[in-house]
């Protein structure tokens, strides 16, 4: 039977998301955020979620809407506060959302570790700072490093540019950001793309996320500008 990871709509794409899930969400600033999939999760009603994303949402839609709904109990990110991150800021000030702040390189490397079968790694980032508190520090060749552990998720919501039915992906410019590494780290990788192409249409040298890392693909042709 032909492999076909393409699902008809957002509801089918996020089917199975449940209370307590940990969800990675691609994007850096407003580039590469899978807003349709985020609203799919919002519409699913799932709660007590842990979100892993570089930022914590801005404006009134997308991640800000999910956080505003009160269904995110915890967020793991590197840079939550930005112009317009009012939804997060308010919940944070009220003590209604837990924050684990992770340096951006450690955040992406912990994802890669999870996806690459690495159980832990030593990084120089954060040594001697509050963010290394309580973590094992070890000296290699005269320099201190912090032990960091893999970061996994039940779901990864990723925005990409093009996909085929096997789930091969290419991205658009800096909207690539966390997508390819989140796709490695989640049990279920769900992707929204602007275009679906026939199998064999992509240059095999230029595929960024090989099919093996992708589970579901949904085509979103309404590429509107979100309030994020």
């Amino acid at each position, binding site marked *: 039977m032909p*492999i076909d990871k393409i699902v008809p709509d957002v509801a089918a794409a996020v089917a199975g998301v449940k209370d307590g899930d940990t969800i990675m969400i691609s994007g850096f600033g407003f580039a590469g955020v899978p807003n349709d999939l985020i609203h799919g999760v919002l519409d699913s009603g799932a709660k007590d979620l842990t979100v892993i994303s570089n930022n914590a949402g801005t404006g009134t839609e997308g991640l800000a809407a999910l956080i505003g709904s009160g269904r995110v109990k915890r967020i793991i990110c590197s840079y939550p506060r930005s112009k317009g991150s009012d939804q997060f800021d308010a919940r944070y000030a009220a003590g209604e959302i837990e924050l684990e702040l992770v340096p951006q390189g450690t955040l992406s490397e912990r994802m890669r570790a999870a996806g690459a079968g*690495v159980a832990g790694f030593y990084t120089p980032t954060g040594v001697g700072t509050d963010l290394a508190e309580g973590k094992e520090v070890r000296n290699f060749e005269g320099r201190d490093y912090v032990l960091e552990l893999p970061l996994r998720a039940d779901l990864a919501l990723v925005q990409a540019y093009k996909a085929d039915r096997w789930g*091969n992906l290419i991205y658009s410019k800096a909207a690539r950001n966390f997508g390819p590494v989140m796709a490695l780290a989640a049990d279920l990788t769900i992707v929204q793309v602007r275009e679906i192409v026939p199998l*064999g249409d992509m240059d*095999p040298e230029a595929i960024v996320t090989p*099919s*093996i*890392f992708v589970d579901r693909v949904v085509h979103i042709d309404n590429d509107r500008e979100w309030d994020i």
Partner: protein
Amino acid sequence: MSTAVSTSGQGAGFTKLSRLQIARRAAEMIPDGSFVNLGIGIPTLAANVMPEGKEIVLHSENGILGVGPAPAEADRDRDLINASKEYVTLRPGGSFFVHSDAFAMIRGGHLDLALLGAFQVAGNGDLANWTTGDRRFPPGVGGAMDLAAGAKGIWVLTDHVTKKGEPKIVNTCSLPLTAPGVVKRIFTDIAVIDVTEGGLVVREMVPGLTLEQLQEMTEPPLTLADDWKELVVA
């Protein structure tokens, strides 16, 4: 498909499978839609005998997903080879990637299955396939330990006995291990055997072979599955 050859010197009325037939039987049993690594040796032959009607994506440790069958001689490309250094092709939907990503796929548990060769397999699933222990010859591990540790399932494709007629399926591996307790199924030139918590279970035997004969060539005790079948390769 090459012709099966008669066994000689065993006086038994059965015919062993060729290497390609072993590969074919394993290929037939791969679930549709799987992502599967083919290791050095008999396993890489499977790319040439994949069953029709299923879509299975083959992975090669040297940075290929979507490996296709060997090309015609005129179409050989020195940049396109598999783990056994044999010429291959790329199927539509295939992709190339760096070695470290190829092994992220392997170690990260993204492969449904890896088909590997073996020097020895123990009854508990221990696998030895990287060194004969003979110190005169350099050992070679390649991707075997990563595959054994990382793929969701490990199937072994091997002759049932060594060239000297000694069992390769043993109580305890005498050769250094590749990984402990990882093998789930063994495809040999005379049988298909599952490694289960309750011991080795024979699923298939070549026509004419008896369980007693098979047991003589196998160290750990064998149980015949209730629904065992004749091992016939399409």
